[in-house]
């Protein structure tokens, strides 16, 4: 991929009930989005431990997307609200580590909104592309 310049590597934690389903639907609908994202399935966005996000960034991911059901629609009643808090706090931690909090994004993607999923991936990939490579990569490995 490197011959095209910087191709970010993005990890997506998707809740199984809404966002993962939307990703499936994007496939079924043959929507196109950048291939930079690698999806990890979780049952609920609230399962995303801040450790996952920080570990991903320390290990060289350029961006982390967390996606869950839209507010009020959580399959587990209110897990997405907890996810929102966890992500907000994680961003604070990242700042203190000297990492741009913009490398983490939380999005609500309902099961039926495949186009939104594709849109979110496109947008986020563009954002990370502009931010450039994760500085942690060099810092840790140099």
């Amino acid at each position: 991929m490197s011959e095209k310049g910087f191709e970010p590597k993005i990890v997506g934690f998707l809740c199984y009930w809404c966002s993962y389903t939307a990703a499936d639907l994007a496939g079924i609908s043959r929507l196109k989005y950048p291939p930079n994202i690698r999806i990890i399935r979780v049952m609920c966005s609230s399962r995303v431990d801040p450790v996952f996000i920080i570990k991903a960034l320390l290990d060289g991911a350029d961006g982390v997307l967390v996606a869950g059901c839209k507010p009020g629609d959580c399959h587990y009643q209110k897990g997405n609200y907890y996810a929102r808090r966890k992500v907000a706090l994680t961003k604070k931690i990242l700042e203190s580590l000297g990492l741009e909090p913009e490398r983490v994004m939380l999005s609500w993607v309902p099961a039926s909104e495949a186009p939104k999923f594709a849109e979110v991936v496109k947008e986020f990939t563009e954002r990370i592309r502009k931010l450039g490579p994760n500085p942690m990569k060099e810092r840790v490995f140099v």
Partner: protein
Amino acid sequence: MGTKAEPRVGVYICHCGINIAYKVDVEAVRDYAATLPHVVVARDYKFMCSNVGQEMIIEDIKKFNLNRVVVASCSPRMHEKTFRKACEKGGINPYLFQMASIREQVSWVHEDEKEATEKAKELVRAAVFRVIYHEPLERRFVDINPNVLVIGGGIAGMQAALEIADAGKTVYLVEREPSIGGHMAKFDKTFPTLDCAACIMTPKMVAVGQHENIKLFTNSVVESVEGFIGNFKVKICKKARFVDEDKCTGCGECAKVCPVSVPNEFEYGMNERKAIYRPFPQAVPNVFTISKLGESPCRNACPAGLNAHGYVKLIGEGKFEEAFKLIMERVVLPASLGRACPAFCEKECTRGEAGGPVHIRMLKRFAADWYYENKGTQPPFEVAEKKDKKVAVVGAGPAGLSCAFYLAKEGYQVTVFEREAEPGGMVRYAIPEYRVPKDVLAKDIEVIKNMGVEIKTGVCVGRDVTIDDIFKQGYDAVFLGIGAWKDRRLNVPGEDLEGVYTSIDFLKRVNTGERPDLGRKVAVIGGGNSAIDAARVAKRLGADVTIYYRRTRKEMPAFPEEVEAALEEGVKIEFLTTPVAFKGNGRVSKMELIRMELGEPDESGRRRPVPIEGSNYEVDVDSVILAIGQVPDSEVFAKFGIDLNRNGTVRVDPETLMTSREGVFAGGDAVTGPSTIVEAIGWGRRAAYYIAKYLEGANLKEVKPYDADRLPVVDKSQVFKRERFEVVERSKIKELPVEERIKGFAEVEQPFTEEEAVKEGSRCMDCAICCECKQCELACEAQAIRHDQRDEIIEVDVGSIIVATGFKTFDPTPLYRYGYRRFPEVYTSIEFERLNNAAGPTEGKIVMKNGKVPESVAIIHCVGSRDENYHRYCSRVCCMYSMKYAHLIREKTGAEVYEFYIDIRAPGKMYEEFYNRVQEEGTHFIRGKVAEVTDIAETPEEEGKLIVVVEDTLAGKVKRYPVDMVILSVALEPADGAEELARILGISQDQDGWFIELHPKLAPVSTASDGIFLAGCCQGPKDIPDTVAQASGAAAEALSLIMRGKVEIEAATSHIDPEVCVGCQQCREVCAYSAIDYDAGRGVCVVNEALCKGCGLCAATCPNKAVTLKHFKNEQILHELEGILL
């Protein structure tokens, strides 16, 4: 196979035909997989999900002694279960398997083959890294409850319910309308066979209604669903229909007498129905329902809870006697109230925003006057059987008389003790004759006496007899309704001079026939109602009257209309001034006043008047009337063990009105200080309720609170949303001209005639719909009417749920160009369906609103469907029903029919043949999307017609078709409330709002939530045959589940390591399912696996990482991450 053994992984890459292979170099991925650690074998195959593919895995497990499997293919949503099963067959735990989605997440969404292949390799690598850390999980099974919930009672719901019930299983069928039947019950004929919908439908409805295995809940909604497949707990809210379903015989006598008419929803507003109704004659259950939205605002505003809506409506119907009876159920002294009530009701009347409030007070006066004139003064109630308990009422004012009347109505023996010479209290002695004539009051009191109430006048309790005496005389309870008769004093010099009156003293004198010599100039001090009354009376005695009030008009407590009347009659008012001394030689001749200004608000919320230093001035006066408020004359009662407040009011329990002395109750002005007649009457009736309970020996703290059954008030804004109301002006009340008025004490307001009363009554907008006039109760021989019925929650346990909530039709009003609601002859298809139905508003005659048969009809297809602005989808049934209409119109009327279509879609059995038939019958088919429907004629032939303007795309020309009637073939949309139901059930909707099936081809009736199935149009538009087929399919799925008896549920639950847990209980706090208990003995938290849903929130919350979510453990997810980022 334990986890300790060295991992041996088999990796399988699926081509999915070419779905994956056309973008992903599957061989390259396979070769790469083979190089990954622990991978023993890597293969690719065309269809891994096929038998051959699965066998390949099973054989490899045995051959290579595999203990882990990875399949890279479609989404786990599709085939995770398939491959887990294969693993199990091969002899390894199904959870030692991982899937990589390289179709939905790679080949279908990425274009560059190289990139796609790279990504597939990484996903496979992540899966291999993860699977190494997988652990075997114990599979969990639960029993399936054999009961089934079906939501929606249209043809889909009925079909599904019958299939299951016939198989011997119990079905709870919930329908939100009062009858089952759904849309199909509205159709006349069905395409393409043209058989009568009712003929094929009604037998099914009856079968559902009578089936011993179907428990039918109509007029009901699903409130909540908890649990999971096999074990759902459902709360059904059975809305009050105010009719006992078991007793109602469906005879319809109630609807004949109901005075309230509203637009009929079943006929789409093309005619009206009564508030008590049955949607259509073949309804199942064949019972009536009352639309009652709550309490109308007028009724809610009345301090006595008088049902204004009810009697206004009855008067509007000319039922004056019934109106009077309804009034007397809540208040006494109706004729007096009809004259002197401030009418809190009218201030809330919704009609106020459409022509002025209904003259509710005047209608009450009319009903009472009419009754006294035509029926006499016998109370309109049967006297209950006499009881042996006796009650003494002290004071014959509104509160006392009300209490006495309602106790006597219950059969108690009541004696009223009144210290004055005549009963009536303030109504007699304080309210001037020109407002309430004494003979009117006399009749009001006559009714109370005729109820059996004994009134002893000239007996002053406290002076002549004590409370103890009363109890000694054998009375079992006492009600104190002594009012507030003691005038307050200003405490300024000269108050005792001759010519200085207090208002109550003054009014009482005039009301008993005295005509005090006031002289020329009269000053009235105060701004309340008694000040105004005193001023208007003094005016009638010929004086020049000025009211002096220490604040401004805005703060005056008197009713504005009274102030207005006083001003009209020539009374002057001076604001911001107060007397500081009265001067004179024996008799008052001068009054010294001081100017005031308004300061900070006081405890009453009004701005406190502050004297302006040095602003004193004098005026000449001949008399002064002090009307600065009254307090109860209650001191003496303190001696009888009755606690008083500092202002002299009697202290009572605010709910039961019992005083500090057992058996003694109080109400009215004695408790509140000066208020209104209607408030006092309300207190009296409330006291009567609790006194009766007290005499029954009940503990008053435990009895049902007074008026506990009253419904909440209706939201006014909703009334205007419900239907369109024309502005109807309020009737003018005839009043005596001012010059006549001030000559004497003749009544100012002139009564309504019968016609005027009926006309005014019919201005009522029926805010709550049902007015509770209770006419239905009288008409119902079966005694099935239950106005006190309330919504009921019923809990049922079911194992599976079938959703069959159907659709609604698109409202074409926003498509302005098609003229719907602008031109009366533009109909929607469902309206036309009713117009054409033999049971519909025209009894099946296809006629225009003017009664004429149309000579030409246009049918416009795809209204709201296949339209980017509304719905992109095709609604599937419109072409066919449009052609059905064409056939029926030609058959019934011979009119020319024009079908304006984009494409004709007739893809069912005998559908194309029907299309041909309709063409042969002479219907015109014009291909083109209609631009507009207009009434602007361009030629004489177009005059008086609706002109359909269209580009005929086959002829390539814009054409105009003048027609008499236009039918819009509107789209189908998800039913109202689909979104809420989706939330309750945890199922998903697609972008158009239809519920999503698990798989569009292979699981069309299942949902992603196990145990919940779909039937009919709630999943997408479809015709009746498809709906019925899908309903049977859903029933088969539910039955299959029941026959299995057990089902496997999520094995991936949370686990808490007691060695690590410190018992902080944060996991407990966040768990939405209360699945975590705290073991106080060991000081640790414990997961209840039966309740755990496996979301993993607790695992992410635990600060010590004592909680792990099986199959989604930190190490598993982190290794998957490592596989991605390597």
